[in-house]
């Protein structure tokens, strides 16, 4: 199938939907196309719903006060220009989604109900169908069940993308005047905490497999801060978020001795509200040193609180409620254990992603990045993804209007991409032998867990381990040349695996390069255990050299825009 469009958006999730609608509002004559791997009504991070939006600029706060907090929360290293531009748009973006039908509870003065210093409560079980409807009403062309396999480039300029239909088996060739990457980040790089039947009971969507990063890496886009992994502290077993209890109900975490160790050990860094890496580092250190299990202490909650707690989980993570019922857990008598998750690579909570300008353009002409794949501005969460969608749409529409032409695609390139897309399927049909995506997934996850600081290693990363992992990933990439796929579903899994290998390779290079520990819990470099502002108050960036195929790693300077003590907001 051949599609010509003005604006192509890869991924119809939180950020992509906002970008699509904004572009159509700016210019209704524009042809806007979304390629979505699943179905836009229930795809991506928000498939199950949300119960809060974690950043809103409340009365008494400002974009600058947000940046001071987000900078401290990221251990002093943040793209303040990106955070500021996002924060200036965020309230309008949330109000826009409210108008589309998202119920947001208010106090008697008509203000959104606060959750913590920055968050608001929402009744977000249907957030995704609501966003999908807005996209439909805006007359955006949505192609569901299309897996994007590569960007099309011409002299460092992105001119479209290719992929295949999981339902129809068609090859998709999309020519676009501008392209926005809006996919999720990367899960499934690491061995998860649960095995077998429960291996996808992870916090981050297991269907977010780093494709948005991988297509950019292969096209030669510059990436930043992959080494700032996201290792979340979550309810053990089901990996449910703990913010709902900790922030929503002010419940402290305790170790097996009943000590409030966050308040004790990290008082100078905010205690229970310490920067997010420390909130996983704290409990994991307790457990590693024999003071586990760790719990979230719900004993102060009354019956009404406990009922409200279940209601809020039903909006976002119903599995937790089923978990309580299945195991007969009464939170008044038994506390929930907390534990770290497998590591994820995300730009929504952390800084990992494309290196972008304030208009969300990447280092490749014609390509923009938003949401989880956009780097540098951690703690943007759902609201920040909305805002970035709007910002990128403005810039992309402006670019389209100024440089109004589709580029011809070299037929040889099309043939090459078609072969690359379908090769695993064709190899199987020819009776060739090779590993299946699931076999390779297990090997990748084992390597990453054991040598690149997985949750089973308490996230500890050694220089030697990284060197071994580099060799293992190289071998796996060679193996991937023989991947087989028995049907279109497996072909999707095959490409997801190929994409995760590219992300894992870049991640290892980033971890090796930063010789300090800036984010204990996210990035514990055993040989370099301390934060070192003198040498490492910089962004670690990388680019795959298109000629040599080598990952080149280098630094970019940090710029402080908002004055103040970076370690004391």
């Amino acid at each position, binding site marked *: 199938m051949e599609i010509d469009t003005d604006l192509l958006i890869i991924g119809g999730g939180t950020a992509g939907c906002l970008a699509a609608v904004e572009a159509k509002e700016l210019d209704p004559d524009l042809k806007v196309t979304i390629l979505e791997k*699943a179905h836009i009504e229930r795809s991506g991070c928000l*498939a*199950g719903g949300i119960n809060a939006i974690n950043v809103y600029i409340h009365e008494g706060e400002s974009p600058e006060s947000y940046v001071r907090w987000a900078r401290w929360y990221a251990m002093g290293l943040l793209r303040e220009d990106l955070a500021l531009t996002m924060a200036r748009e965020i309230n309008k973006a949330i109000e826009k989604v409210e108008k589309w039908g998202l119920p947001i509870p208010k106090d008697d003065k008509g203000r959104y109900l606060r959750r913590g210093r920055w968050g608001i409560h929402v009744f977000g079980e249907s957030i995704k169908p609501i966003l999908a409807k807005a996209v439909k009403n805006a007359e955006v062309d949505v192609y569901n069940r299309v897996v994007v396999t590569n960007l099309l480039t011409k002299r460092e300029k992105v001119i479209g993308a290719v992929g295949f239909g999981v339902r129809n088996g068609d090859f998709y060739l999309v020519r676009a005047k501008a392209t926005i990457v809006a996919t999720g980040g990367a899960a499934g790089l690491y061995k998860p905490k649960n095995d*077998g*039947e*429960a291996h996808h009971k992870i916090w981050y969507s297991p269907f977010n497999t780093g494709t948005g990063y991988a297509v950019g890496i292969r096209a030669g886009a510059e990436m930043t801060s992959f080494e700032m992994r996201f290792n979340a502290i979550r309810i053990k077993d089901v990996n449910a978020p703990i913010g709902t209890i900790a922030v929503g109900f002010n419940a402290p975490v305790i170790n097996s001795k009943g000590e409030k160790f966050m308040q004790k050990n990290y008082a100078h860094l905010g205690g229970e509200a310490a920067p997010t890496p420390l909130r996983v580092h704290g409990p994991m250190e307790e457990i590693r040193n024999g003071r586990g299990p760790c719990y979230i202490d719900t004993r102060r909650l009354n019956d009404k609180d406990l009922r409200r707690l279940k209601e809020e989980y039903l909006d976002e993570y119903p599995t937790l*409620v089923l978990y309580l*019922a299945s*195991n007969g857990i009464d939170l008044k008598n038994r506390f929930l254990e907390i534990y770290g998750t497998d590591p994820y690579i995300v730009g929504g909570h952390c800084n990992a992603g494309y290196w972008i300008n304030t208009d969300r353009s990447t280092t490749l002409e014609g390509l923009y990045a938003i949401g989880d794949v956009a780097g540098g501005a951690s703690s943007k969460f759902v609201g920040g993804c909305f805002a970035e969608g709007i910002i990128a749409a403005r810039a992309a529409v402006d670019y389209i209007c100024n440089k109004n032409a589709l580029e011809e695609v070299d037929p040889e390139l099309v043939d090459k991409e078609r072969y690359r897309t379908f090769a695993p399927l064709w190899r199987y049909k020819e009776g060739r032998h090779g590993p299946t995506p699931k076999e390779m997934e297990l090997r990748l996850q084992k390597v990453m867990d054991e040598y690149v600081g997985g949750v089973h290693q308490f996230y500890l990363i050694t220089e030697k381990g990284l060197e071994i992992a580099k060799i293992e990933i190289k071998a796996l990439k060679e193996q991937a040349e023989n991947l087989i796929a028995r049907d279109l579903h497996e072909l999707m899994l095959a490409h997801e695996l190929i994409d995760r290998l590219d992300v894992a390779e870049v991640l290892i290079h980033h971890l090796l390069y930063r010789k300090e520990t800036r984010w204990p819990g996210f990035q514990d470099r055993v040989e370099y255990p301390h934060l070192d502002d003198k040498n490492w108050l910089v962004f670690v960036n990388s680019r795959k050299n298109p000629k040599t195929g080598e990952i080149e790693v280098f630094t970019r300077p940090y710029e402080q825009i908002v004055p103040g003590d970076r370690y004391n907001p």
Partner: protein
Amino acid sequence: MLTIVIHHEKCTGCKGMKEPLCVKLCPGDLIMIKNEKSFIRDPGDCWDCMACVKSCPYGAIETKLPYELGYKDAHLIPKRKGKIIVWELVYSDGRREVFERQVRL
């Protein structure tokens, strides 16, 4: 050993529809039709988003925790009614709780 259970006595395969809602909406592309019934390809690949459970017009799909995470005899049944969703929670010991949540303005 399941994450969703498709009750085949209730599943009609949504005959006549181009694509049943469970097949259409699953974010992981995990549900398919075989002999006019829905099946999950690989139960372990389910994320528990419950998109299929909430959308099934016959209430034929139920989320279950894998045994390693929870014993089997509890139920969580969502039913969408206009602008609200009603959740029925049944504990292993038979206790029952019902929750109503607004989902649209």
